[in-house]
């Protein structure tokens, strides 16, 4: 018959080591799939799609007067394909160049309001302010407005938008 822990100190040590080992093995075996489930988003590639925004000539743009144009991305999210409606703020600069902004504040992502009387985008959450060319003119935002990745069609008039921002290495914003 095996000795009890009270009869043999070395037997006691052995039992405690086995108890510890078993707990560790079970713990690690459970932790691996759980960590996998939790960290899974880090290993997923984001679904990037091109979506047609429309024709620029249809927008009747005036210089420095932003137009909010909705765009509907069809993207794969997790187990489903969903429509993500987003605003594209099209601004024609004085020299005729076009800018395609997101209406997300670069501070923490609230939806910007265009205040025509003040010629500014205002953030309703924390008071960020941007001018019509997307530069920060007040409040806490750390950088100019995000610009959508875009391209022109063959007719140089139709615009396609990608659900991705330019110069945004950390993928901030929505």
């Amino acid at each position, binding site marked *: 018959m095996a000795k009890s822990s009270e009869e043999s100190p070395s037997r006691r040590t052995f039992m405690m080591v086995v108890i510890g080992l078993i707990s560790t093995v079970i713990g690690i075996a459970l932790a691996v799939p759980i960590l996998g489930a939790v960290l899974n*988003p880090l290993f997923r590639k984001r679904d990037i799609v091109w979506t047609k925004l429309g024709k620029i000539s249809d927008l009747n743009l005036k210089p420095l007067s932003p137009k909010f144009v909705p765009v509907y991305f069809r993207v794969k999210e*997790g187990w489903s394909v*969903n429509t993500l409606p987003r605003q594209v703020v099209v601004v024609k600069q004085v020299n005729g160049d076009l800018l395609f902004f997101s209406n997300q504040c670069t501070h923490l992502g609230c*939806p910007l309001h265009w205040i025509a009387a*003040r010629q500014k985008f205002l953030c309703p959450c*924390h008071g960020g302010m941007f001018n019509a060319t997307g530069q920060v003119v007040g409040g806490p935002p750390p950088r100019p407005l995000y610009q959508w990745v875009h391209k022109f069609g063959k007719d140089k008039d139709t615009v396609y938008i990608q659900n991705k921002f330019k110069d945004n290495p950390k993928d901030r914003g929505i």
Partner: protein
Amino acid sequence: MFKQIQNWFDERIGLTKVIEEFNGERIPRRGGWAYTLGSLLAFLFTVQVVTGIFLLFYYVPYFPIARNATYFLKHHVVFGNILLGIHLWGAFTMIFVILIHMARVYFSGAYKKPREMQWIAGMVLFSVVTVLGLTGYMLVGNENSWWTINVLTNVASHTPFIGGFIREIARGGTETSVLTMQHIFAVHVWLLPLVVIMFIPIHLFLIRKTGHQGMALEYKNSKISEDDEKRWLKPDGTVPFFPDQFYKDMIVSLAVFAVIYILAVVVGAPIGPMYRPLALHFAPEADWYFLANEELLKYFPGHGLIIFSTFLIPSIGFGILFLLPFIDRTKERSPFKRPAATVLGILFLLLLVYLTLIGGEPKAPATV
């Protein structure tokens, strides 16, 4: 008949003795009403669990549908508005009562040796309940929920080094998606309630182990010197927990529950407008307990400094609160005999109230 049943159990497991042991704990006598807050919180948490379980009979954690499910619950389920209302107002009350409970413990110095661990267990409960509140707000699935998810995950993304990972894990991807809602749902109904259920017994067990540690007024007639730790084990008078203290607990619980119930019936749970991602003039609002932090976010502009409002100030403040028993190691308990701690506490509370009030002001720019 009843006696026979009692005997049956007593012969086997000594049930009466267990119950007497549990109920017979002696509580310092003078501060009875001040000590009801802990029991009140246990009661409120039970109410949250019970109402929450039955809200799950109807709730769907899927973005636009979540708000429809909540709407159905409120308007088409018999007494659904009351169930939802109790869950909402109960949550608000719980957060508010936790703050009062913490203030009571702080001002009466009850976190001091030997109750350090108890304060820490309480802080864990406080942080978890706050996150439960925030996630609950997100689960309603209305317009505010959507922006709260975005803003808060963006706030989290400013954590040094791991911020980006935290945001992606919380959202279940780069963008707020169906997985985001699913994750928040799992955290709100399983993960965090389980943490609370684990920590409440720890909190209670520690009370029993450390013995009486009442407020200073319990020791007015004590002849033991103030520097002697034994002083705090011998209050002038004690009463048994059951029924003396329990009676007071029940009266307070009933009063608070009545307020919650009336608010649930009369005001109900406002579930807000459907999420309209293309709305041009929507101004998101945070829940009242987050307004102080929300206000902080406005003050730190530009590159680099943003980390003060998103990470440094909240986490340092939280850290100080967490480690309070190890920072303040004096033995004095009476709030009048430790003016520095009392004044700092009052100033902190005033700052919190001030930030909450100005944070709650309408800040949407006029839609000229």
